[in-house]
């Protein structure tokens, strides 16, 4: 008898451990997204509004843009929300995505230690600033992964006509990590780094770091949203996913994005009206 009871208890325990929870799980969609949008708290603000309006729950996996796109190519997503326009357009062109829409933007900034060894504070031309960092050999922490921010950073170096890879391991340090981890590393070693404004504003471990360069047109950071193609990935919840994409681009969604602030500052600027590509 005792054995029967303990066997029953054990199987109950295992059943509890394995049962999948998530209310309205069949109506939940999966979004592959970037760390900047998730870590800043944007989703915590806008998703409850969407779920209340539609009854659709949204699960967000936050990884770098490159990994997010790869995961979506493996059909492990219903919606992709990232910030690397060329890669996004290729994703659609290769048939994985239905269509790419502009959703919102913010901007990149160069942050660095207060004592500013490369003397770039207040500059508005990011190309010259990067050149000065390279010439002075000041330490620069790069994402060094396949993220949207890293891709943007490489473009900036190119336009500044500097090849930082030559200094890899010297003043140019590739962390191979997410934005937050790279900021932690930069603060730890007093290095300049390129970050998106949203992550920076909501980042809690700033130390004595300040924004050094901002406002250059080259620092524009566009986010796009794509519904994964149900013809390529039959498991995609196309109807619910489309609803989410449509809502994000609707007046309600755009307002919700605009209303999200951290410490009184708006982090993302909706621009879905600007059209799709």
């Amino acid at each position, binding site marked *: 008898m005792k054995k029967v009871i303990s066997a029953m208890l054990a199987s109950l325990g295992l059943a509890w*451990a394995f049962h999948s929870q*998530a209310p309205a799980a069949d109506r939940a969609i999966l979004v592959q997204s970037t760390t900047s949008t998730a870590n800043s708290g944007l989703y915590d603000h806008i998703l409850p509004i969407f779920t209340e309006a539609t009854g659709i729950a949204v699960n967000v996996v936050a990884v770098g843009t490159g990994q997010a796109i790869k995961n979506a190519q493996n059909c492990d997503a219903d919606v992709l929300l990232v910030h690397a326009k060329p890669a996004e357009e290729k994703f659609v062109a290769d048939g994985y995505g239905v269509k790419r829409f502009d959703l919102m933007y913010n901007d990149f900034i160069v942050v660095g230690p207060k004592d500013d060894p490369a003397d770039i504070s207040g500059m508005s031309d990011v190309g010259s600033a990067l050149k000065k960092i390279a010439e002075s050999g000041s330490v620069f922490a790069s994402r060094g992964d396949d993220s949207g921010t890293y891709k943007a950073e490489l473009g900036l170096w190119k336009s500044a006509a500097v090849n930082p890879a030559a200094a890899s391991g010297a003043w140019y340090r590739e962390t191979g990590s997410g934005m937050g981890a790279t900021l932690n590393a930069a603060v730890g070693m007093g290095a300049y780094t390129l970050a998106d404004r949203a992550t920076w504003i909501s980042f*809690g471990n700033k130390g004595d770091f300040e924004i050094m360069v901002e406002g250059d047109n080259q620092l524009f950071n566009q986010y796009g949203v794509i519904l994964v193609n149900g013809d390529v990935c039959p498991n995609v919840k196309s109807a619910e996913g489309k609803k989410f994409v449509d809502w994000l681009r609707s007046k309600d969604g755009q307002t919700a994005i605009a209303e999200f602030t951290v410490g009184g500052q708006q982090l993302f600027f909706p621009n879905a009206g600007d059209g799709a590509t």
Partner: protein
Amino acid sequence: MQDFAEAFTVAFGLVGALDADLVEIVVLSLRVSLAAMVVSCVIGLPLGGWLAISRFRGRGVMLVVVNALMGLPPVVVGLMVYLNFSRAGPFGWLGLLYTPTAMIVAQTILITPIIAALSRQVLEDLNTEYAEQLRSLNVTGFRVVRTLVWDARFPLLTVALAGFGRAVAEVGAVIIVGGNIDHLTRVMTTAIALETSKGDLPMALALGIVLLLIALGVNALVMSLRATAARYAYA
């Protein structure tokens, strides 16, 4: 360091307030890692017992392999499970990626070699004491393994706890196969990784302290159970 003092304040604040999100994360951590521990024991203990009592060609190689697998990097396990459970992978049709079940599978793969290798050592030691007596009593085959496992139940409890400790503390595998999805697959370690990447170091440390307290609690509970049971039938 100021961060530590602040971390303790935040930690006790969290525990004291029984923050609902924290409770959810803690419960999921325990659920996933305890399930992984149970499944690993179901697989690993008989395997360890078999390796302890059997003598066959290639046993030495097998011992080396099992012992080496104790050092499996969690990220590699996570990747393997991801590739298998991804929609594009062979088990994608199960729809398990980004669920607690996938996390249990990953942690099970991670700690089964630990359970098997450590229990093999414990059971082999006990078998040197028991082997002749059991043969004299005409006990053979799987009944020998069952006898050894039951009689070594208290040392094996420590083995199981070592597995649990490894499972509940690892982040590399569960963050890949679980995705750290809020209210669905977020556990203590992935939450700590998230707070760290947000630069909220006091919160990250506080969660670490809570994780440590949980580990202490689980171990204290098991050890007191052991002490009670030992008075009954074990010496």
